[in-house]
């Protein structure tokens, strides 16, 4: 299991569009993906879960990924966050 804290950088936060990108990307991996914000833990492959986080710009999210392709999955997550979900 690997764990990493990431900060939402895109201006508008994780609204429907970036959440969809994240889900589509995570769907390609076999590993179990969980996202933690404060006391709320959601499934990283569920768009409703991600949107429940209501993660605005600056929000800190902890990604917990567990499975055979956990490293690849984490790299994909990091890339999306770094590229600000291609929003600006």
């Amino acid at each position: 299991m690997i764990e990493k804290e990431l900060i939402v950088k895109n201006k508008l936060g994780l609204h429907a569009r970036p959440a969809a990108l994240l889900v589509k990307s995570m769907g390609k991996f076999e590993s179990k993906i969980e996202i933690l914000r404060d006391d709320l833990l959601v499934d990283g492959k569920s768009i409703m879960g991600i949107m429940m986080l209501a993660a605005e710009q600056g929000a800190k999210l902890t990604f917990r990924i567990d499975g055979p392709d956990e490293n690849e999955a984490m790299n994909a997550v990091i890339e999306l966050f770094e590229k600000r979900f291609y929003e600006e």
Partner: protein
Amino acid sequence: MKSNKIFRGYPASPGLVKGKLKILSNKLEVVQEYDVVDTEKEVERFLKALEESKKELLKSKENIKDTVGNQYEDIFEAQILALEDKSVVEKSVKNIRETKKNAESVYKNVISEILDRMQKTDNKYLKERSFDIVDVMNRVLKKLKNRDEQSVETSDEIVIGAYNLTPTETMKFDKKKILGIVTESGGMTSHSSILARALSIPAVVNVKNFLSNVNDGDIVIVDGYTGTVIIDPDEDSEKTFKKRKEEYKNYNLKLLEMKDEESVTIDGRNIDLSANIELLEEIDEVKRYGGRGVGLFRTEFIFLEENGYPSVEKQENIYKKISEAISPDSVIIRTVDIGGDKPIYVRNKEENPFLGFRGIRVSLSNEKILKDQFKAILKASCKKNLKIMLPMVSKIDEVIKAKMVLDDVKKELFNQQIDFDKDIELGIMVEVPSAAILAEEFAKYVDFFSLGTNDLTQYTLAVDRNNTNISQYFDSLDPAVLKLIKFTIDAAHDANIWAGICGELSSDPIAVPILVGLGVDELSMSPIFIPEIKMILKQLSYEETKEIAKNALLLKSSDKVREYMKGIISEKFPNLIKYFLGEFYDR
């Protein structure tokens, strides 16, 4: 039988259109709860509704791909993912089996929990955006309720119906696809109304009980001239619509013919008609409607986009562009007025944001904001047509401090041998009663006044302009407000500086003769209103307006002033009454 339901609101942005209603709502459909016997059949019914909804979404996605572009396509993808979300589907199926309740009530309960959590955030954007998800959920709920009325696609030409729209939302609209806007809340001066005018989208706001009486897909006529909305119009209304549309068109064409004419009264008093704008995209409109420069360039958008701290370069770039595009006419740049209904610098929620940390108060307490903005304006000022205006000034000290900051920045640029307009004019918004009352003193420190009549009215009459419970109390034609306007203009002229008006009052045909009579030098308004006000101006004489203003100021209430002015306008401008102040659809 057509229901021909007629609603009334405020005419926030002119124009007459007919389209299909698309409701943007954060609320889920109302559903009935009842027991079911055959739960497996109910599960099947639920899954079928999901499947059908998905098919529709996929079809719409294909339809709009080529026409609107992938901004909407992405939303459809998100909606499809939400529809198929495993946890939601599994939980709903499980609950149908366990509770033996109907699918729509179970499904609604499951998603309500999630939506509540989603909408609990303080982040306005995320909260508003949850309607993307609500939209798709409602599609499923409607199917289950067997209310499968004609669905509205983004590819249709649509009229948006909403409780309220944020500026960001309004900005996102594609002008070619959005024919009109109807909202339940808001006023003439709320931000979405201002933006609707900027984008030339006809809008009616403050339409009470609208959303609970209409359905997605209803045919709707929006008359942004009179503030009338008609749902499911009958043959008579359709006929009136066509006839009026033609009349408006001819009337507007005639107005536009005066585009390049001077804005002078019969007896030769010149009054500059300039534009209130916020976006560079609006420059075309300023030219199209014959605006004489920009009387108010709002900079809030630049700051909101960059979370409050846009770089000097970014600002300079924008100010330079507008300076060049509008030259040789001038552009008044108002330093950022964030706060009030747009709080980004305030950490803790304020009880009374409009009486709180906003305008010049923010810029002075966080000097970098003011310094950077002054620097950007000065660096863009080589064409010598930029002026600076400070918002929300309530004390002389604020002007003195701001001038010191401006001098510092000038020195800095001078030492760096950067070229700028050394004589750049500095003015203030007069929108707090204290500034109007002390106008004589303020006039010693500044080069011009611009009256912000919206805020001046709200502060003078103690009426929150966004509070719909008391909107009948908000009237800029109140004698108290008119007296403050007169006071300010007189003080300006005594000190040999000019005074303009950049509030909504300057585009109100009923108010213009009074304002002219009070001696105003400039009227600044949404570009779209300029031709009409010019037409009025050209038929007035300064001498007679002085008399009108004198009479109006003797009246005891805003109602009396309106009544008096309506009489004058209907006598002098019968067409205006017919087209813009009449009640068309009353029978």
